[in-house]
């Protein structure tokens, strides 16, 4: 018996670690390569220093960790174990990534709420600076006969509505209202504050966001889209037919318990469950050409420079059939694309012949997808990435009919509000 025991223990241990190595290399090599590619700047910047060697080693280390076979399943089990042991907080090696379950059953992160821009929070001088930047852009667009609309996505954490196991310092809700008041009082700009709008329309705050993701859900994004259409019609007389922003003219295919958002992937699906994901696409006929521009090398590696042609549900929501059959992984960027420096969407069957430029963060992706049904051309610029022109130069060259700024409060940073700088 003792000999059997000895062999069992040895064989299981060696077999398990060897098979994991083999399967990780066989099946997840692409994940490792992608991870290495994300650190390519560090790796290719060859220099004679210990920091460089450490950077390379760290990159290999994290690439291998990312590529460990069954990694997602392990993380799921981790979340399940934490739940079993009665935990409502999942701590992380990076304190900003600590995740907890709120009283509303949704996941919250100490870091996600402040989005790495914690220094900017509660600082009215900085918010005033952003208000001035938008005001300056507003004057510029007015001079150039371009309409400008600022749509503010709501803060996900509302201390009046949600209690968390540990207190966090998050003033994003107040910041939204403060920036809104500054823009409203000091500019002629059309500003839509979703925090006011959803209350006016008696929309339940609990329904706005995903449980496992820091983003709003797709239904809320559609609601935001319809509010923007209404505002463009009311304030700028765009004449977008109502059928384009009436949800009854869209198919809503719900994939239940299928989506694990940015917070959920850190806790695993067994901790707080998964979200339902809405595949919303037009019943009416569509015909698109989508181009992901190759502004930087990262874009090229992720399909930049390639044109995609087809219907909304083939190109803009890519690709509905694969998503339904779970052949493609559902991500928030299933709408349009994941965040890229520049995306150009041409719509050959649009509601209007107008051209629109959207200054976006990730929240804007599904909204932009729906907006693209209305306009002959929709361009998305993400100021976090490399651009050859400043926003103002881009506007002068492109001459859009309208510029839409769609930001969530996590985007309150210099990067998103510098409209004069080339990256």
């Amino acid at each position: 018996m003792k000999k059997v025991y000895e062999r069992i223990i040895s064989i299981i241990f060696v077999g398990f670690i060897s098979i994991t190595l083999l399967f990780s290399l066989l099946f997840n090599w692409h994940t490792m390569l992608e991870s290495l590619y994300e650190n390519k700047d560090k790796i290719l910047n060859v220099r004679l220093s210990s920091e460089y060697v450490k950077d390379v080693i760290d990159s290999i280390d994290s690439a291998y960790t990312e590529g460990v076979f069954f990694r997602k399943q392990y993380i799921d089990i981790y979340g399940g174990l934490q739940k079993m042991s009665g935990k409502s907080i999942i701590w992380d090696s990076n304190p900003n990534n600590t995740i907890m379950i709120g009283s509303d059953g949704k996941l919250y992160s100490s870091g996600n709420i402040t989005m790495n821009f914690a220094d900017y929070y509660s600082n009215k001088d900085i918010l005033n600076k952003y208000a001035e930047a938008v005001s300056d852009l507003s004057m510029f667009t007015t001079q150039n006969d371009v309409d400008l609309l600022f749509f503010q996505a709501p803060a996900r954490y509302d201390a009046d509505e949600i209690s968390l196991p540990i207190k966090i310092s998050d003033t994003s809700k107040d910041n939204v209202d403060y920036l809104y008041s500054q823009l409203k009082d000091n500019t002629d700009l059309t500003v839509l504050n979703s925090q006011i709008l959803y209350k006016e329309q008696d929309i339940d705050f609990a329904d706005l966001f995903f449980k496992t993701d820091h983003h709003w859900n797709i239904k809320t994004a559609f609601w935001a889209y319809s509010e923007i259409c209404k505002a463009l019609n009311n304030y700028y007389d765009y004449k977008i037919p109502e059928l384009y922003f009436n949800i009854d003219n869209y198919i809503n295919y719900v994939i239940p318990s299928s989506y694990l958002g940015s917070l959920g992937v850190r806790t695993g699906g067994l901790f707080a469950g998964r979200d339902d994901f809405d595949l919303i696409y037009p019943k009416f006929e569509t015909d698109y050409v989508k181009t992901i521009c190759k502004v930087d090398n990262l874009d090229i590696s992720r399909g930049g420079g390639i044109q995609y042609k087809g219907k909304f549900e083939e190109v803009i929501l890519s690709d509905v059939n694969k998503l339904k059959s779970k052949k493609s992984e559902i991500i928030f960027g299933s709408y349009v694309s994941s965040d890229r420096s520049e995306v150009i969407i041409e719509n050959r069957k649009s509601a209007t012949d107008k051209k629109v430029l959207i200054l976006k963060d990730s929240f804007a992706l599904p909204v932009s997808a729906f907006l693209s049904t209305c306009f002959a051309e929709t361009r998305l610029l993400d100021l976090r990435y490399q651009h050859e022109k400043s926003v103002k130069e881009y506007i002068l060259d492109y001459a859009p009919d309208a510029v839409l700024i769609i930001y969530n409060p996590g985007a309150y940073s210099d990067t998103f509000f510098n409209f004069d700088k080339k990256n």
Partner: protein
Amino acid sequence: MVFSSSIFLFAFLPIVFLFYFVIFRKKRKPQNIFLFIVSIVFYAWGEPIFVLLMLATIVVNWFCAIRINKTACGKNKLWLTLGIVYNVGILFVFKYLLFVLDNLNLIFNTNLLIKGFSLPIGISFFTFQAMSYLIDVYRGKDLVQRNLLYVGLYISFFPQLIAGPIVRYETVADQINNRTESYELFSEGTARFIFGLSKKVILANSLAIIADTAFGGTTLACSMAWLGAIAYALQIFFDFSGYSDMAIGLGKMFGFKFNENFNYPYTARSISEFWRRWHISMGTWFRDYVYFPLGGSRVKKPRMILNLFIVWLLTGLWHGANWTFIVWGLYYFCFIVIEKLIGKKLNSVPKVFGVLYTLILVLFGWVLFRSDNIAAAFTYFKAMFSFGSGGWDITLIYIKENAVILVFGVLACMPIVTWCGRVIKNEYLKLSLKIIVLIILAAVSVVYVVKGTYNPFIYFNF
């Protein structure tokens, strides 16, 4: 590279096994050369530059040992001195120089500056191993190793390289060439490694969150201060003993038998007993290479007290260049002296009181040890005794969130496995249970490792 990482578990280790047990099977010399090379890679993974210092240390100590042994009539004290000066020298430069300069600047109001060195991982461990080798050779134990690679393997062998135990050359001298690998040893090693890994990733890392919160806080309630101190006491035990278990386990897999480093220290009935159970390899090192040469206890009382003072001052300093470590070492000096003076009267105290007395003193010791500076330690002590300061709501959250870990942590400080072994007489049942427990612990540990949880290693800094 750390043991509790995916790249170690699922890349480094299986590749090492493949070469060691398959490709170089039963070829001792290639196996040893291979182990030396992978040990250097293991160290370079975390310290790509300081690996050169490690290699230099190997060469210097190999050379010095040969010179020490060379003289026909007696050993060569000069080369012993040179070797020790080298080892203490690099330890001083990398670990203590900045601390000394800072204090000189403070005392003499000067501005002596030096570019800060980062601390090479595990420097205190490998320099102490190297010194024990030189001293043992000098003392006439016929141990000198002429093969540079074998000296290199002894100093840099990856299981015990960066956080001990401090292996004495005499322990492994014969094993380098004449060890025997077997299923029995391998499975013992595997079991030990899994226990160590689970101590580290399941218990120590979870407890670290409470401890770091408490010790990192600006304002601290009494309850949270006590919880933080208890959590740190458990964390440091599971962190360090877990690493030692992994090291001993890995050693066994390759046929090496290292000495034990921990023996349920939190069940000790006195401070003296605690130190016979805690970090045994360091305690015996100081005993054999410092305390005994100074005369040990076989001298007059004042001299014995001086000897103890020196040993505990060095013990404190060994842990780091900070006044907190020095005071921590001297704190233990005081209690060890008191216990020596009281003598065996302490044994007449009921066991439970002895254990409580030891635990409380050790707990205060850990507060000193964990604090960033003396002032912070006193602030922490103040918080521990600011009864009625409230803050229970936060403390209860941490207790509730970590209740399972705290319970298992307390249980794992006691020799539960030994007790179970005594209760369960049936060998089949015993082995079956052991397999089940090991599989569960391994599975949960792997989940924690792959998830990449909070993963600080305390003893890497020493």
